């Protein structure tokens, strides 16, 4: 059986350029950003999938 449940985006920690706060951007939020045409072109560090986005 072929697994297709791949994670297209991995959770990332960023300094939110709008609020200036450090926060986690979940894979779902990155997917949402893509749908809205928001280019994720700022520095980030990878985090564990358990760390959640506030969105």
């Amino acid at each position, binding site marked *: 059986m072929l697994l*297709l*449940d791949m994670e*297209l985006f991995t959770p990332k920690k960023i300094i939110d350029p*709008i609020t200036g706060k450090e926060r986690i951007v979940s894979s779902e939020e990155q997917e949402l950003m893509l749908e*809205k*045409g928001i280019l*994720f*072109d700022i520095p*980030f560090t990878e985090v564990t999938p358990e760390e959640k986005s*506030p969105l």
Partner: protein
Amino acid sequence: MSENFEKLIIGSDYEGAEGMFEQSEESSESTSEETQKARQERGIFPDAQERFNATLEDLELQQERILENGAKYPSLDQWIDHRITHERGTKFFPAFLKNKDGEKFFCKLQISENPQALEGLKNEAERLQATPDGINRPKLVKYVEPKNNRSAMLITELIPIREATVIPAEDWSEQHVADAARQIKIMENYPQESKENPNFTADATRLLEGAGDTVLEELRSKIKTVIANYAPESRATYVHGDAGLKNILADKDGTVHFVDWEFKGEGFKGQDAAKLWSGLQKNPVASRAFLEEYTHDPDGTIDEGRKNAIIFGVMIENLVHLKWRNENIIQTGKLAEHPNVQQQIEELNLRMVEILT
């Protein structure tokens, strides 16, 4: 027809109302065979990738998959499989593009025979060209009509995250809500012609009837008063159509930008304001500031019309969800299958109590 409200409030049919149910466990795995079947059921073009490639070639563009910071974007096939596996919509494929000079764009690509999806792309192209002055939205670069094994493609400017992004309700500032209220007022004042000549007060009365006994008895007379107060505002109104937090990007300067203009644009006064106000509930300061800004004129006087409109809008949002539960769960005897529905009905009534009292 009260069905108008279901379409206006939740996008299409009962999609949003159904979405309020407890989520079923997502399938953690699926076979390629299952995915292929799902692709067929969703009407996804078997040659979606080829169509994408051909359209890009025509336009001398290519997909941007990897950014300098290491962020990666999916291929069309990866994205479709991911969306199917997670039981999410596949109305269009979102992607970043670049031209020979390295200039980047955003596109939404038609990937299926779904007529609503194509209509959404066309609507967005038309609306981005004709949005009233004073409304912040992405600039339209090009709309490519579907033809000769080429899919429709909407190309707009992209928005770098450092300029504006989706932020949680908690991070909305008073400047952001003030700017959102300002833009919603501009939209509501923009002339909107209507072929259907809607009667929203009659629609609301039918909606209340459809919600049946799910509406608290003590709220009924208040709801009828709200409907009567709304009568002078009951006319076709230019709206964004889905003014939730996910479609309003905030920037550092305290201004906001509306994205996703795929809805037709004709709605009712108070619709956008109610949707945004509901989304801001996790931030009491911002939601109160929004209410103040939306319902007051620049000279500080209350605009009774807008005050009645936002109350009406919030009430309609909740009545739509109550009617759905009444007609599809209560009246069909399926309450035992949906044990959380009774609690949801109480919460929906509570939300109406908050806005009506």
